[in-house]
C-alpha cells in the first residue's frame, strides 16, 4: 500500500480512538456516567467525536501527502542523479575508449617512428637553445658516440667533450648563430657548421678507435616561425673517408703520371694545339709517303722518312701523356724497322696500309677526345654570345685559326715544348735533368721552327738516354745529382747559332765502335783507321743505335739521323760537335737567320 494512503488510515484509527477516549474521559471527569452506547446515541457527542476524528484524519492525511511528496521528490532526485551518473559514466567510458584508441594509434605511430628513427643509419638527437640534449636520440646515435645517458646533458660536453676548447667554443658560437639568426637558411648554416667532419676517438674494450663523423643540422621551428630545436644528424663516414683518401691517393698518382697533360690543359693549350696541328700534317704526309712505296723495291729513303714521322708522333704523344696514340705509333714504327732494308712485297704493302689505318683510327679517336675536352672547357661560359666582355680565350678553334696565321713562332714555345720532352724523358728513364733555353731572340718562322724542334727533341732524348748518368752514378763521379741540358740561341755574323750542351758522359766511343762492327756498318780494318770524330759520325747514320733494346725514348736509330737530315738538307746549316768524354757534349748548329 502506498504510503500516502497509510497515513490517513492511521489518522482515522487514531482520530476515532483518541476522540472516543477523550470524550469518554471528559464525561467521566465531569461525573457524567457515560458509555460508548450513550455517546453513539447522543448526536452531539457523536458529532464531536466524528469532528475530532475528521480533523485528525485530515491532519494525518496532510502529513501523509506531505511525506509522500518529499519521498517522491527525493526519489526523483535520486533517480535523476543516477541517470546523470550513468550518463557521465557512459560518456567517460566512451571518452576513455576513444583516448585508448588514440593512445594505441599514437603508440603505434611512435613505435613506427622509433623503428624508423632507430633504423636510420644516421645518429639523431635534438637539442634546445641551451644545447641540452632532449629525449629521443636514437640507437645509431648511441652506436656512434657510445652507450651513456645523454638526456638532459649539454651536447657540447657530453658528445663533443673530447674536442679541444677552441673547437668547443666554435660549436657553442655556431649553435648560438643557429638559434639567433632567423633569416639564415639551413644550407648556409650547414656551410658555417664547424664540425661538418670531425674525428671522434673512443676506447672500446681497451682498443682506441678513431672514427670520422660528419654532422648536419636541421632547424625545427614552431607555428610562429620561432626556432625551438635543432636536430643534429650524425653519420659515421670512416669507411667513406678511407675510400676517399684511397681515391685521392690514386688521383694524386694519376695526376702525377699525367701532370704534364694536366698542366697543359690548365695553362698551356697552345702546346697541345701545336701537337694537334702537327699531327694533322704528319698524318697527311704519311699517307702521301705510303702511296709512294713501290712494290718489289727497297724504298729506303721513303721508309726512313716514314720512320722519322712516326717516331716524332710516338715521342711527342708520349711526352704529352697520350699513351694510346704513342703505343699505336710505336707498333707502326717497329713494323717499319722490321722491313727496313728489305724488299717491300704485296703482303708488306697490305700490312703497311693496315697499320696506317690503325694509326689513322687512333688519331680520329684522339681528335674526338680533344673535341670533347674543348667543349667541356668552354661549358663554364654561360651565354658567351650575350656577354661582349667574356673570355673568348676558351674558344680554342678560334685561337687555332689565329695562331696559324702567325708566321713567327716564338722561342718561348720552343722552351715549353722542349722542357716537356725533357721532363717526360727524364721521368721515364729515372734520371734527373734540367732543361734551360737562353735567348734574347724572338723566334723563327713556322717551317724552321718545326725542323728545329724535331732536331732538339731527338738531341734531348739522346742526351737523357745515353749522356746524362743516373743520379747515383753522377754523385759518385762528383757531379751534381741533376743533369743540365742548356740551349743558347744567339746571333753571330748574321747567322743564328744554336749552342747545345749537356753535362753527361759524352759519346762512348767503345760502345759506338762495338755496335758499328756488330751491325756491319764498318769493317774492323776500316774502324782502326777512323778518327774519333769519324766514329762519332756513325751515330748520325740512319738506323744506328747503341741501345740494346728499343724503348720509347730512343734506341730506334731514327733520332740522330733526323738531326743530320734536318741540319744539312732542310736548314742548310752547319754542324760542329765537341765530345768531352765523361764531361758531356757540345753541339753548335749555325743556320742562316
Amino acid at each position: 500500500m502506498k504510503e500516502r494512503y497509510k497515513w490517513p488510515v492511521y489518522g482515522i484509527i487514531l482520530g476515532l480512538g483518541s476522540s472516543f477516549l477523550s470524550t469518554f474521559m471528559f464525561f467521566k471527569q465531569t461525573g457524567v456516567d457515560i458509555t460508548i452506547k450513550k455517546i453513539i446515541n447522543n448526536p452531539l457527542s457523536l458529532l464531536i467525536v466524528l469532528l475530532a476524528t475528521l480533523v485528525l484524519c485530515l491532519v494525518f492525511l496532510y502529513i501523509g501527502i506531505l511525506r509522500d511528496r518529499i519521498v517522491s521528490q527525493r526519489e526523483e532526485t535520486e533517480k535523476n542523479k543516477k541517470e546523470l551518473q550513468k550518463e557521465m559514466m557512459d560518456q567517460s567510458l566512451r571518452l576513455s575508449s576513444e583516448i585508448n584508441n588514440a593512445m594505441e594509434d599514437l603508440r603505434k605511430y611512435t613505435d613506427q617512428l622509433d623503428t624508423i628513427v632507430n633504423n636510420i643509419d644516421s645518429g639523431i638527437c635534438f637539442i634546445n637553445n641551451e644545447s641540452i640534449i632532449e629525449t629521443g636520440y636514437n640507437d645509431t646515435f648511441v652506436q656512434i658516440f657510445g652507450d651513456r645517458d645523454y638526456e638532459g646533458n649539454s651536447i657540447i660536453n657530453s658528445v663533443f667533450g673530447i674536442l679541444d676548447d677552441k673547437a668547443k667554443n666554435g660549436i657553442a658560437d655556431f649553435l648560438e648563430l643557429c638559434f639567433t639568426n632567423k633569416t639564415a637558411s639551413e644550407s648556409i648554416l650547414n656551410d658555417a657548421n664547424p664540425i661538418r667532419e670531425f674525428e671522434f676517438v673512443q676506447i672500446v674494450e681497451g682498443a682506441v678507435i678513431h672514427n670520422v663523423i660528419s654532422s648536419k643540422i636541421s632547424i625545427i621551428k614552431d607555428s610562429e616561425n620561432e626556432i625551438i630545436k635543432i636536430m643534429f644528424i650524425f653519420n659515421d663516414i670512416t669507411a667513406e673517408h678511407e675510400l676517399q683518401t684511397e681515391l685521392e691517393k690514386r688521383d694524386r698518382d694519376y695526376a702525377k703520371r699525367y701532370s704534364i697533360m694536366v698542366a697543359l690543359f690548365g695553362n698551356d693549350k697552345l702546346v697541345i694545339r701545336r701537337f694537334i696541328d702537327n699531327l694533322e700534317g704528319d698524318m697527311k704526309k704519311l699517307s702521301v709517303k705510303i702511296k709512294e712505296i713501290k712494290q718489289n723495291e727497297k724504298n729506303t729513303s721513303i721508309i726512313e722518312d716514314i720512320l722519322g714521322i712516326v717516331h716524332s708522333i710516338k715521342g711527342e704523344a708520349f711526352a704529352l701523356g697520350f699513351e694510346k696514340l704513342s703505343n699505336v705509333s710505336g707498333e707502326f714504327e717497329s713494323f717499319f724497322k722490321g722491313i727496313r732494308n728489305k724488299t717491300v712485297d704485296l703482303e708488306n704493302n697490305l700490312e703497311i696500309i693496315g697499320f696506317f689505318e690503325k694509326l689513322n683510327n687512333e688519331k680520329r679517336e684522339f681528335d674526338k677526345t680533344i673535341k670533347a675536352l674543348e667543349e667541356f672547357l668552354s661549358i663554364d661560359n654561360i651565354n658567351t654570345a650575350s656577354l661582349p666582355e667574356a673570355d673568348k680565350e676558351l674558344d680554342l678553334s678560334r685561337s687555332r685559326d689565329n695562331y696559324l696565321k702567325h708566321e713567327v713562332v716564338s722561342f718561348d714555345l720552343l722552351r715549353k715544348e722542349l722542357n716537356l720532352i725533357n721532363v717526360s724523358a727524364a721521368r721515364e728513364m729515372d734520371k734527373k735533368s734540367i732543361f734551360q733555353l737562353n735567348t734574347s731572340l724572338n723566334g723563327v718562322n713556322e717551317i724552321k721552327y718545326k725542323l728545329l724542334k724535331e732536331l732538339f727533341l731527338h738531341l734531348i732524348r739522346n742526351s737523357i738516354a745515353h749522356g746524362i748518368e743516373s743520379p747515383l752514378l753522377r754523385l759518385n763521379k762528383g757531379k751534381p745529382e741533376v743533369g743540365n741540358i742548356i740551349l743558347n740561341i744567339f746571333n753571330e755574323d748574321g747567322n743564328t747559332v744554336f749552342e747545345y750542351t749537356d753535362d753527361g758522359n759524352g759519346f762512348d766511343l767503345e760502345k759506338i765502335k762495338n755496335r758499328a762492327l756488330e751491325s756491319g756498318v764498318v769493317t774492323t780494318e776500316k774502324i782502326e783507321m777512323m778518327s774519333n770524330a769519324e766514329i762519332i759520325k756513325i751515330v748520325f747514320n740512319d738506323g744506328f743505335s747503341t741501345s740494346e733494346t728499343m724503348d720509347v725514348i730512343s734506341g730506334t736509330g731514327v733520332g740522330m739521323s733526323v738531326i743530320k737530315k734536318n741540319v744539312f738538307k732542310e736548314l742548310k746549316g752547319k754542324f760542329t760537335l765537341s765530345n768531352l768524354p765523361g764531361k758531356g757534349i757540345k753541339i753548335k748548329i749555325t743556320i742562316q737567320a
Partner: protein
Amino acid sequence: MKALIVDDSRIMRNILINILKETKVDSGDIFDAPEGKAALEILNLEKIDLLLVDWNMPELNGLDLVKIVRKMDKYQNLPIIMVTSEAARYNVVEAIKAGVTDYVTKPINARIIMAKIKDYL
C-alpha cells in the same frame, strides 16, 4: 616579384640577370647596381623581393650593405643571397651574422644558383 643584383663586375651582373630571366622573373623587375650605395637608393625607392649581392665592391661593400638593409623595417624578412668568391667558413659565419639568407661561392654554377633562387621566389 622584384629582384636586385649588386655586383661591381658587369659580366657577373649580366650572367645573374640571364639566370634570373631563366627563372621567369620579368626583365622589367630586375634591377642592378654596381655597389652598395647605388643599391640602397633602389632599395629605398622600390619594394625588392630578392637581393643578390657580391661581397667585395668599391664604396659600400656587400656585407655592410646587408647589415644596413636588415635594419630597414620593410626588409626584415627579405631573402638575401650572397654571391662571392670568399669561401672560407669564417666568411660564411660573418655573412650569417650580418643577416644573409643564403650563400653561393664563385665561380658560380648556373644550376645551383637557379635552384637557390627558385627557393625564394
